[in-house]
């Protein structure tokens, strides 16, 4: 299901949805260089640890750790990870994980000529080695895209995990 807010420039909305789908395709095909090209130079890429807490007013905010992250990356550190994955001795990805990023519940919160805020849900499906049963992990993306050189580039991604305990044997894939 893809839903776009009304009163926005239809072309941009379709473009942004294409961008999300294209990104999923290259991530699932391990085309890391193409993915790097989709990121702005000042990309902020984060996933805070989720904490189960009693209900409070600002619920989700309180549930996100301010001291511990599953991802806290910039372009340089993303490049560091990518360079590692290209190496045949990166045992966690050799043989490589087989993944699908299912993107849904897309909400475009704001869009203008230079910037857009896009929220989406992702169901991350991963199969490794000869395991018949996949690992499944759901999360929400809070993305900021910037329009640079006629392209939408990812400037910020905040990943809000559903789980306080990750159901993944490692996090060797970008989300």
């Amino acid at each position, binding site marked *: 299901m893809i839903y776009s807010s009304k009163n926005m420039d239809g072309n941009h909305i379709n473009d942004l949805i294409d961008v999300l789908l294209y990104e999923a395709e290259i991530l699932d095909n391990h085309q890391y260089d193409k993915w790097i090209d989709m990121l702005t130079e000042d990309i902020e890429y984060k996933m805070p*640890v989720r*904490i*189960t*807490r*009693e209900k*409070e007013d600002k619920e989700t905010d*309180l549930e996100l*750790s*301010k*001291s*511990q*992250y*599953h*991802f*806290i*990356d*910039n372009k*340089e*550190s993303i*490049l*560091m*990870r990518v*360079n*590692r994955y290209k*190496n045949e*001795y*990166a*045992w*966690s990805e050799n043989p490589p994980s087989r993944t699908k990023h299912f993107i849904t519940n897309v909400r475009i919160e704001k869009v203008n000529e230079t910037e857009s805020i896009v929220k989406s849900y992702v169901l991350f499906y991963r199969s490794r080695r000869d395991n018949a049963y996949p690992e499944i992990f759901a999360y929400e993306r809070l993305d900021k895209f910037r329009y640079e050189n006629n392209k939408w580039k990812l400037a910020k991604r905040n990943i809000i995990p559903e789980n*306080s*305990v*990750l*159901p*993944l*044997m*490692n*996090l*060797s894939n970008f989300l």
Partner: protein
Amino acid sequence: MVQGDIKTIRNKPKEVNDIVSEDESFRYEEILEYNLSERAFKMLGEAESLIDDGYVPLYLLSDPEIYEAERIKVFASSWNFLAHESEIPYPGDYVVRYIEQTPLIVVRGEDNKIRVFLNACPHKGREFVKAEIGNTSHIRCPYHGFVYNTKGKLVGCPVQKHAIGDVINYNDFNMYRVNVEIYKGFIFANLDPKPKNDLSTFLGDFKFYFDLVSNRSEAGLSFTNPQRWVVPFNWKAAADNFAGDIYHAFTAHATGYALFPKETIKANTVLTGLQVDAGNGHGIAFSRIIDSPQWYGNWWPELIRKAKNTLTESEYKFWVKYSTSTIIGNVFPNFGFLNAGMPFKGGSTAEAIAPILTFRVWNPISHDKTQIWNWFAIENDAPEDLKKYSYLAYQHSFTANGVFEEDDMENWITQTHAGNSMLKLKLAEKVGEYKPLIDVGAPGNVQSYPSDIGSMSFWRELVNKLLE
């Protein structure tokens, strides 16, 4: 950096009447019985003599019956690390933790004293708290509304007169208490109501080594929230690794080291190190790159002066001489830690390596599943830029997506998988066996790197405990 979270104090609900004076619960319960089957007894007997010869039978790692025995004979009677004091800094702060799958609440009482209780209500066994962290003045059971103070004492329940009258033995309604002891801010608990030894005896000679990561500054350490993930391996694979496997680093972590600035790695100097069997199943390893406390020397030379005040003289001498680059250890049974220099992005050359300190619990879920609890820690008085870069270096190297740690998972998962074999696989953990013990002015049995001596001490203690 820890605990930026809002505190909420809930007062005792008004409709609940005081029924007893607010003193302390001293209610402890016995641990369950466990008798080894004939099969397990025979397997462990064989394991005992194999270990004497430098072999480890792989069935120790993966066998479900061995796992069942460990629950009672290892975890229920050891001192298990639960939390660091800095995770519950204020009165009323609590965290929920586990020994194997026994749910516990670690709470700092209104009197500032830290106590550990079973997270189960004495009325019908409902778990009190499902949040992992919080702050409260009272604990109220959501099932029938019994209310307890943070000292574990029942202070009231709805329609008390009609429900429990006043003829009842109130002690039946106090929270189940668990023995707790604290070493340098590290909170350990023992489920045995009468622990066979105190924490200090349990740690024994290992205190000398544990001080090198826990006691370098009077300001103490600060822990982050834990990162947790579940991996299909048996907990002992990680314990074996942290108790003394530094040898795997250059193969298993080849791509991690490839990320270090070239001038910081010189193979010939890296191969200097020590491996220690510190007794009671505790193992630790040290390696160094150059002759000075390099990472802290670059980042925080002050720490080297500070440590002189907090470490004993022999600890300090040892730390400066031998443990300047990497320290990796495991407190029996499943509490690991690592202090190492790791790359982060943002600096250049030698400064692109920052020291990191991480603690972890290999929390067993079943014979082939483990939940990893992973904390970052740093001295409270560390310079602010070091705090920041050290965290980044840690996050990028020793977490679920760490450029080092990711590759460890594969080793432990496949070892566990191989353990499903129907054969009595005899592993030769004999690296370094031929080498003599050396005297470096530190306790325990010490060998030069590389050696399996620390890992073997873990297996030996495991079998001892199971046969006890």
